[in-house]
């Protein structure tokens, strides 16, 4: 805890420039993520979008939610949730990404019929907007 008044942390008032700075940064990052999405970089698009989203999330947690000035125990609680979320992803995708065979969604397998009417090659049907 860098703050010198830990006993009265509820009296600590965050200087307003932190909030304005965070707000402006979030707007700029939103602009960047929309801009990047206008170009096709293949798989890099998702990577860039996620990096920008994580930076935005970090700004919101650190400054808007005050984690930067918060008690260590609250940080542990929150970061703990991210660790367990990571484990959730890790275990699921260690299976999903390395399957040699993926069961298709089809009537013969599960008796599930897709409700999507296929677009015909001649352009019948319409693409809604």
């Amino acid at each position: 805890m860098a703050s010198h008044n830990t006993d009265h942390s509820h009296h600590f008032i965050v200087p307003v420039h932190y909030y304005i700075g965070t707000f402006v940064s979030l707007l700029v990052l939103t602009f960047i993520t929309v801009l990047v999405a206008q170009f096709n970089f293949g798989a890099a698009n998702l990577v860039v979008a996620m990096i920008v989203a994580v930076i935005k999330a970090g700004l919101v947690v650190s400054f808007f939610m005050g984690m930067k000035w918060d008690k260590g125990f609250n940080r542990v609680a929150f970061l703990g949730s991210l660790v367990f979320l990571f484990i959730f992803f890790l275990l699921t995708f260690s299976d999903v990404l390395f399957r040699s065979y993926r069961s298709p969604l089809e009537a013969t397998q599960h008796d599930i019929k897709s409700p999507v009417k296929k677009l015909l090659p001649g352009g019948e049907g319409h693409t809604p907007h």
Partner: protein
Amino acid sequence: MTNVRYKEHHVAHHFANAGHEFDSAKLGMWVFLVTEVLFFGALFVAYGFLRWSYPEMFLEAHRLLSWKMGALNTLILISSSFTMVMGVRSAQLNRVRQTAMYLLATILFSFGFLGVKAVEYSAKIHHGLLPAKFFTAHGASEHLHLFFGLYFTMTGLHGLHVIIGIGLMIWLLFRNARGDFHSEYYTPLEMVGLYWHFVDLVWIFLFPLFYLVG
């Protein structure tokens, strides 16, 4: 409103002092947010699984959403997070009227968000772009209904959080007008603030994942 009568806050008997009470409330709020992270986390895992399984379908499906609407809602939510945090700060500085104005602005932004969402939802419903067996549109991919299942589930639950947030902020407005919040006591404002920023946080991930697929 210069002569507001502040209500003195009485610390509950099981706390040593106001600081102890505040810190306990805040820890409780963070633990609640931890459960929220895991709750939404499960849906993000489902999203990851389906996107990995049907990448072309996601490309086709995201073109059926308007990224401009999504971007507009992102700007609205970021602005509402800013007004929320300024509202808490105003209470810390004993500026009751300013707190009310910031809360009101946050509520208006929230309704703006829901308004944009309502326009989007009605267009999707009109075109039959719905989850599972309710899907009635045409598509190149036969898995489009899965995308809209995720879309309505995730943005729907997020929207529910926004609606709950509006309710909480109206409650705060009343308490603020009563003079409950001041530099010595603003715990409910701070906690609703944390909740509201979490709602913003979820949208920060929903926006690129649904509207900016590639």
